[in-house]
């Protein structure tokens, strides 16, 4: 009897230790601060300002996409609403994040990807709220295809229609069946005329693009979507390209942003960023590790992406600069990126008042001591703000000075 109770005590204490170890290990290993659906537990947060100045956020936390709004620039938020009834196996790729656009009439369109199977094949799902974010319609796949789709980006055109582009692997198997070598995935697109409820049939914009990087997206004008993406050029060179659509149904030419000569058969998980100013300047930032150059770079184009300026390096090379983002606003353009010194991550910013021809000195505007989301920029039509989710310090929205 004594032996049995000793055994039971030993077993109990072992289980306690295992439970504690599992818990602390889990907390430590997660890129989120907690496992619930709250904003403070989010690993990815995407911002958008409505035309009335309300800030909307869509975030990934606890296996759900949640949406909430703030009327006081992020100091307080409305009660979050989940976009799905059920928990989802959300795409946790480093460059995956929910997409949100706010229509002038208050409608909200969302797009995001999930892993649909154990082989990590993705599926892009969409939904819409017609009641100011109080509820969302049933989730719908953006396309009927069952092949992997990831890295959707969503934009709102001047006429109120939504334009989506994503990376899609549907051409892979047919090519292989015909005995052709197929690298990467296709850049696909579709438009929605009903505010993101239904999308037109998906179409190919360009084949053989990199399969694991976010897309950069902006409008060059009404009905002129522009996508920047990591392309696969001849010889497996994964350099960046830009495509300006003639209209939302007509893809344009693939034009090279720069010759970095990054020949690599791998997933960089590190996509570009694009913004287009009112004066039609294309601002592009990207990461490369090519033969010609390594690190983060910026270039501008005055001729709709036909030619670009010489790439301008960003950040301190010894501090692993990552995740560049650019946004043009009424008072100039701003760029941010992350640097890491071995202990601390900082977000560095610089600004330009001459369409990107010259830039201010970089300034660290925020820091954190644990993992963090990519730094993003968002504009309310006046100011530009840094939107940054961090594990240790939660969500931050910081107005960025003009650097003058």
């Amino acid at each position, binding site marked *: 009897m004594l032996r049995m109770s000793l*055994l*039971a005590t*030993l*077993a*109990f204490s*072992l*289980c306690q230790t*295992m*439970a504690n170890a599992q818990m602390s*290990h889990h907390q*430590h*290993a*997660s*890129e*989120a601060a907690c496992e619930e659906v709250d904003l403070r537990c989010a690993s990815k947060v995407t911002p958008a300002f409505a035309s009335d100045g309300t800030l909307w956020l869509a975030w990934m936390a606890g296996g759900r996409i949640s949406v909430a709004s703030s009327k006081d620039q992020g100091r307080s938020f409305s009660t979050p609403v989940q976009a799905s009834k059920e928990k989802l196996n959300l795409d*946790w*790729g*480093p460059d995956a994040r929910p997409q949100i656009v706010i229509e002038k009439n208050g409608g909200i369109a969302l797009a995001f990807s999930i892993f649909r199977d*154990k082989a*990590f094949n993705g599926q892009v799902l969409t939904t819409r709220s017609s009641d100011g974010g109080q509820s969302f319609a049933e989730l719908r796949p953006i396309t009927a295809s069952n092949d992997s789709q990831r890295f959707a980006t969503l934009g709102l055109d001047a006429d109120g229609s939504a334009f989506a582009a994503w990376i899609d692997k549907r051409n892979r198997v047919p090519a292989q069946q015909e005995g052709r070598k197929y690298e990467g995935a296709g850049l696909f697109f579709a438009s929605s005329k009903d505010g993101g409820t239904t999308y037109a049939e998906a179409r190919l914009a360009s084949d053989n693009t990199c*399969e*694991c990087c976010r897309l950069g997206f902006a409008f060059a004008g009404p009905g002129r979507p522009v996508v920047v993406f990591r392309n696969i050029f001849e010889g497996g060179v994964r350099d960046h390209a830009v495509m300006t659509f003639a209209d939302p149904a007509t893809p344009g030419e693939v034009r090279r942003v720069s010759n970095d000569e990054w*020949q*690599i*058969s*791998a*997933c*960089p*998980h*590190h996509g570009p960023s694009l913004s287009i100013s009112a004066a039609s300047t294309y601002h592009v930032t990207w*990461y490369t*590790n090519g033969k010609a150059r*390594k690190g983060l770079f910026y270039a501008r184009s005055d001729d709709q992406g036909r030619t670009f300026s010489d790439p301008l390096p960003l950040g301190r*090379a*010894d*501090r*692993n600069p*990552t995740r560049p983002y650019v946004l043009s606003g009424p008072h100039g353009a701003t760029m941010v990126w*992350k640097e*890491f010194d*071995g*202990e601390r*991550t900082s977000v560095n910013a610089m600004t330009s008042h001459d369409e990107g021809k010259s830039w201010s000195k970089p300034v660290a505007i925020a820091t954190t001591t*644990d*993992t963090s989301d990519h730094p993003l920029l968002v504009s309310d039509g006046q100011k530009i703000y840094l939107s940054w989710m961090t*594990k240790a310090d939660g969500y931050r929205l910081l107005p960025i000075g003009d650097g003058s």
Partner: protein
Amino acid sequence: MKRCLLAVIFLLVSLAAAPAAETPSELKPFVRGSWQEVLRSHAGRPTLVHFWGVTCGPCKVELPLLGQFMKDHSEVDVVMISADLVPNLPGAARAMLEKAGLGSAENWLFSDGFVERLRFEIDPAWQGEIPRTLLIARDGAVTTIEGSAEIPDLEKWLAQQKAVMR
């Protein structure tokens, strides 16, 4: 908890009687300081360190080739480090390793949410692209192969290692 208690009691009771069953391939948690541990424990031996991930397309093609390379060359220490961003999934990682014949390699799994810091310890210039192979010579000299490694290149490096020995 109750199930765990029962399981542990069963385990303790059966431990004395049953011979040790074959354990599934171990996945060591790769955390802060693990990189130095890897370097220390293989110092003086030719070592192939491979960074990969379950969501990485090119890795799916390369892993079985590395499995064969390990089988053919017992003189090289093979260290596999699953370096997808967390959540790194132990079940999926183990299944892929075993399918590729790498279950018996020294297998690690990124297990720290602060991956920037993990990568910085390994190579401050590495931004996380996988696959990535580091060939570490007896004298500690590191050759980095970005993207999928070509097996003939690995063979060539190994031949150089052997030549140095002679």
